[in-house]
């Protein structure tokens, strides 16, 4: 391999980081410039990585990525993950499938229920279970819309619990026995479901965005400091205290009146 080939290979590798529509032109420019470099061509070519990464980070049309921002996407992802894990756990079903008798099924169900309640109990001691204050005002949505929030949370927990169970069945089949792992898995799963719920708008259930730090820890005694998040659809603002205090211990949601509708896309 000649040095020239090596330099072109470096440029070709760097080109992989450049967004596809600009890649051909970008490579043509660097290759043309390389023709004029008579010394230090390797360091010249290595600099192309910085240029390529700059273009990637500043791409005005980034490729859409799968995010959990929408509640439907979140549920779909969890359902897909549950199905995938279930399919992977089928070969080790002898470990988790109960003996096909009334007493076997009863024992299995009681064991799962006990473990589930224990994980809730541990979570309660480790982490506040509340979803924050959501004081109703005259702009608060109807009861059915508020009910959706709880349905969504129930659905998430209903999908997280079996996903963790089957995932840990796979782990047990490799490193037996592991009932503490199941407990830990459920604690983390439930904690994620609650944390995700706290970061969502109670009206449209989309993830909140544009977090803004307000104030500083020095203001704890005389005022409020923390993070403010906003629903991009204009439903409200969420205030998360930086340090929980006696007058502001939990995050607080504020519904916005229609004058804020200009925020909606």
């Amino acid at each position, binding site marked *: 391999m000649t040095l020239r080939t090596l330099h072109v290979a470096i440029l070709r590798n760097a080109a992989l980081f450049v967004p596809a529509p600009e890649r051909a032109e970008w490579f043509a*420019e660097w290759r*043309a410039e390389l023709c004029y470099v008579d010394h230090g061509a390797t360091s010249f070519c290595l*600099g*192309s*990585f910085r*240029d390529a990464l*700059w*273009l990637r980070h500043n791409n005005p049309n980034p490729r859409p990525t799968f995010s959990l921002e929408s509640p439907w996407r979140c549920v779909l992802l969890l359902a897909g993950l549950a199905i995938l894990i279930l399919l992977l756990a089928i070969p080790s079903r002898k470990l988790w499938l109960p003996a096909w008798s009334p007493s076997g099924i009863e024992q299995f169900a009681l064991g799962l229920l006990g473990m589930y309640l224990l994980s809730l109990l541990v979570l309660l001691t480790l982490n506040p279970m509340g979803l924050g204050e959501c004081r109703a005002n005259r702009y608060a949505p109807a009861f059915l819309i508020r009910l959706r929030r709880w349905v969504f949370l129930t659905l998430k927990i209903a999908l997280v619990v079996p996903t963790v169970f089957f995932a840990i069945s796979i782990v047990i089949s490799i490193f037996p026995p592991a009932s503490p792992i199941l407990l830990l898995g459920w604690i983390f799963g439930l904690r994620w479901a609650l944390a995700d719920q706290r970061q969502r708008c109670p009206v449209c259930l989309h993830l909140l965005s544009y977090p803004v730090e307000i104030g500083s820890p020095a203001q704890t005694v005389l005022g409020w400091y923390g993070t403010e998040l906003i629903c991009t659809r204009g439903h409200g603002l969420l205030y998360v205290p930086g340090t929980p205090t006696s007058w502001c211990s939990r995050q607080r949601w504020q519904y916005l009146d229609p004058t804020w509708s200009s925020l909606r896309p």
Partner: protein
Amino acid sequence: MPAVTSDAKLSHTAAIILQAIDAGHEYGFSVMETTGLPSGTVYPALRRLERDRLIRSQWESQRVADAGQRPPRKYYRITRSGEAMIEASQKRYPLLAKLFPVRGAEKP
């Protein structure tokens, strides 16, 4: 097009590169040689300046490149906003004008 005012912000490196282009070093490697900056600094700065419409790029015609028996190069030229920005940056960095005093020295 972004408005350019006298208090517009431009990093020292970007100001040097802009000044080098204005002095006639109109392609990336020439800017590198003149300024002594590495390729990993010059090219991203050129993208940024072009995005901010302070410079514009243009490919050399294939005919000219063939005559010189070399691949066509991409040339960068200063826009009106860029000229205003150079004036503003010279107020901010007074020694800049002394670095590249000759305008249009290497125009192709």
